[in-house]
């Protein structure tokens, strides 16, 4: 990003004024363009810059108690030549973002004219840099995930969906909900035996899930029994999650009922979301 060139960020084309332009008109132009400054040109040659701050200096006070001591028409008679700065830092379109940031981080310069072959081709201010920053941040850190639900197996079967979930959660500082749905037991077992087996499995699964979450993540774990797709959808609805992460088979089964987007993790891919 620091090697990005400013030509992708600069405002272009940009309105210009001449030394003879009235200050009031320059103010209007600047406000309409939404810039913090305007290049001052003679013909095509850059001869100065007029910043918003330079205009504030010659405008009457905004406070009535002070404004009543001023000659009302004064700024109307002033020309850009009276307030502009003649020594101007310029950049070429190929200058680095780093260079622009260095200049704009100081308090003096509010907008940098971009000059190519002696001609003004654009303008770069904090406004333009913020636009690039917002876009880059958005691209690298997509809109936030507050809570993610991962439907995972236990033991080896957990790997792809689990690691994808942890990587995503770390990126987004999201709260993680790990859900393991135990398949229903075969009929035929006695009720008590059935309960006992289920309890054992549940305890084992809870323990395993709890142990798989790194300490720095906020997580809750849950184990239920039944139809996996139905259980996952129900849990996602109850906990108002932003995303469900599951292996491809489960993801397909719940895709149509899910209350939120579903991320399908192919089996065998363990390095999915880190990049």
């Amino acid at each position, binding site marked *: 990003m620091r090697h990005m060139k400013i030509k992708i960020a600069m405002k272009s084309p940009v309105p210009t004024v001449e030394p003879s332009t009235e200050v009031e008109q320059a103010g209007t132009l600047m406000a309409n363009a939404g810039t913090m400054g305007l290049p001052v040109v003679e013909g095509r040659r850059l001869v100065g810059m007029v910043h918003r701050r330079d205009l504030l200096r010659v405008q009457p006070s905004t406070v009535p*108690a002070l404004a009543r001591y001023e000659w009302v028409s004064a700024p109307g008679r002033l020309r850009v030549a009276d307030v502009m700065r003649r020594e101007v830092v310029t950049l070429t379109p190929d200058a680095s973002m780093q260079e622009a940031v*260095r200049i704009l981080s100081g308090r003096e310069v509010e907008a940098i004219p971009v000059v190519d072959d002696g001609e003004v081709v654009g303008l770069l201010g904090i406004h333009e840099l913020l636009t690039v920053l917002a876009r880059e941040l958005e691209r690298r850190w997509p809109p936030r995930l507050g809570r993610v639900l991962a439907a995972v197996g236990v033991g080896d079967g957990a790997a792809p969906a689990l690691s994808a979930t942890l990587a995503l959660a770390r990126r987004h500082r999201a709260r993680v909900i790990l859900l393991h749905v135990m398949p229903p037991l075969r009929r035929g077992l006695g009720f008590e035996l059935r309960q006992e087996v289920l309890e054992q499995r549940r305890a084992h699964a809870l323990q395993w899930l709890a142990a798989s979450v790194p300490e720095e993540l906020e997580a809750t774990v849950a184990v239920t029994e039944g139809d996996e797709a139905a259980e996952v959808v129900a849990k996602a609805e109850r906990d108002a999650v932003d995303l469900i992460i599951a292996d491809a088979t489960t993801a397909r089964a719940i895709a149509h009922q899910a209350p939120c987007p579903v991320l399908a993790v192919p089996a065998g891919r363990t390095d999915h979301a880190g990049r």
Partner: protein
Amino acid sequence: MRVAEYMRSVAVSLPPAASLADAGEAMTAYGLPWVPVVQNGRLLGLVGADDLAAARPSPATTLTVGEITYHLTTIPVSAVMRLDPPVVAPDTPLAEAAGLLRDESVGVLPVVEDGRLVGLLGARDLIALLAAGGPQGW
């Protein structure tokens, strides 16, 4: 990438009755182009260097320098501050904050949690990310 990671603490704030001269001194002393106006821990507004510049008389004033200086000590910041400025929360995504700083054309976003001012996020602090190559991972 949340606001909390990049905000700065509130080094200085002013009560609404503080004067424009107080605001100017605070900005100079702390090297900041804005100061939050706070009452009982709650944010009322924001006064920036530009607000002060706009409040200063133009050269067409009939006042002497001494008179201007005097007036600046009598005018409260509440007369020129931006009321109810846009704010963010500590967990607001940084991208959203950057967009807000741009769209609202403010130099700084107050960070508010449970109605209290807990920090400030300056536009210049943010764009420094562009030069630094950003946080790890850029």
